[in-house]
């Protein structure tokens, strides 16, 4: 059973195709990650799924409703955590929840009944009367999440939910998102943090230039596209070592700046070749989602 189904989505702005034939499917109860470099089309895709931008071509269904035709009805059962906090600075924590509930047609009593649980969920107990300016970045982010849950949605869209948060605040956010999944909610998440996607997502899609590059469970995708072991070598003289050893001892190797990335099935010969190199440092690790992401989307900077 899918909660989001998009087929052949296309969207151009001024001749530039931002989303170029994208298919997406989000199953009930899963956390689905939408990953891609800046400008890959993530936010435009989210806006189309919410019915805030009409696609040039393609079809969208969210919670069984055609979008944008019945986007408003679909949004009754959706919660959204936007990329940039847009809490009401003139209201307290509690008033933010009360006012937002009104937009869903909820009565004051209905929202008031939910406020204590929402504040507890957001770890903001005792903060009900606080002004927004008095909250830390992590607290604001969690309040935005609580606000997105005011209507008890079946599906939650999160656009870069932990950008700008410190590690403690990120871990708390992740814990809360897992709690939502245990409650049976479905999550669609965009993020730049590969560790975040690897931890949270049941499945994910990597997109670039508005096209789908890969889709599947994180570990299956890594196994499918990237060699299992990685040796990163850096330090003075890395170029010479790279020229002599990296090619023959790796399945695939790249030199970027002052770091050599060597991808291999068995790292022992690479590590052995580094034994006599006192000036070089290295890290031997398992391949991760970032390796996959960089392999598919390249290493050039996106502005």
């Amino acid at each position: 059973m899918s909660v989001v189904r998009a087929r052949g989505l296309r969207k151009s702005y001024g001749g530039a195709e931002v989303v170029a034939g994208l298919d997406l499917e989000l199953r009930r109860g899963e956390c689905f990650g939408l990953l891609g470099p800046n400008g890959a089309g993530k936010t435009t895709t989210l806006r189309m799924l919410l019915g805030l931008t009409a696609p040039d071509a393609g079809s969208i269904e969210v919670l069984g409703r055609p979008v944008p035709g019945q986007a408003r009805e679909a949004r009754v059962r959706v919660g959204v955590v936007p990329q940039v906090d847009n809490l009401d600075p003139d209201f307290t924590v509690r008033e933010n929840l009360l006012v937002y509930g009104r937009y869903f047609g909820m009565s004051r009593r209905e929202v008031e009944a939910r406020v204590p649980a929402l504040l507890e969920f957001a770890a903001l107990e005792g903060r009900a009367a606080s002004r927004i300016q008095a909250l830390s970045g992590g607290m604001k982010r969690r309040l935005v999440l609580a606000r997105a849950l005011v209507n008890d949605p079946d599906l939650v869209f999160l656009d870069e939910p932990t950008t700008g948060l410190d590690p403690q605040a990120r871990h708390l956010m992740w814990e809360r998102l897992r709690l939502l999944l245990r409650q049976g909610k479905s999550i669609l998440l965009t993020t730049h943090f590969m560790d975040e996607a690897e931890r949270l997502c049941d499945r994910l899609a990597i997109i670039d230039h508005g096209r789908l590059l890969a889709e599947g469970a994180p570990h299956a995708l890594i196994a499918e596209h990237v060699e299992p072991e990685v040796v990163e070598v850096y330090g003075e003289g890395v170029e010479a070592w790279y020229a002599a050893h990296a090619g023959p001892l790796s399945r695939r190797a790249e030199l970027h700046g002052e770091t050599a990335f060597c991808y291999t099935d068995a790292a022992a010969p690479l590590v052995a070749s580094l034994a006599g190199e006192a000036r070089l440092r290295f890290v031997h690790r398992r391949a991760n989602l970032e390796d996959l992401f960089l392999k598919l989307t390249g290493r050039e900077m996106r502005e």
Partner: protein
Amino acid sequence: MSAALRALASRRWVAVWRRNYLVWRKLAAESVAGNIVDPLFYLLGFGLGFGAMIPEVDGVRYIAFLAGGTVCYTTMLSASFESLYSGFARMHVQRTWEGILNAPVSLEDVVLAEWTWAASKSLLSGTAVLLVATALGLGQSWTMLLIVPLAFLIGLAFSGMGLVMTALAKSYDFFTYWFTLVLTPQMMLCGVFFPLANMPPWLQALASALPLSHAVALGRPLFLGRWPADPLLHVAVLAAYGLAGFALALALFRRRLLS
């Protein structure tokens, strides 16, 4: 416009209007104080000081003549400030609209709420001027009460046009044009401070096209206990400015926010 009519019927816009009202209520004391003190000193200073040099205008004391115009331009200004500066803050700076649009609320609901909220601010400030004028013993006729709904209509006219500017604005600076090129000239040309009849014909013709002239043509007689000439014409012109502004603003907001 059909989407706007559906939005009106759905009443979801009321939640957005209410949001603005709740914010206003937090700062109501300061706001009401300004609404009262501003016209009070205006009328006292200008009306008495300037009025001392003028025996009578239109058969009444200058200060009473001025009060009838003041109520109109005050409502013009309050709807304009609300739809331009506060509206821009909510749309762009604070991203309040973005949050609202993620809920099951449409852009039509939001713009309808902004339009009527700015007109509500006009109603409040217009009523405050009436109270001040009454306290000064200037207006005594029951026809004054009709200025309360008139203030709302004037508010709709100017917030409709103001929202067009908000939909086009890149920053607050843009609004300076609207104030200096559109609103200030109307204050000077539309009969707020002196009778239009004293102006040269070409200036009168220009003034008759401007919405504030029609507001004053209704507001001043009602304030002085007289029945305005051609009331339906003036109401229709104000409504037309408001509706045209609203429709154009909505189209521009759609292009800006939903493309």
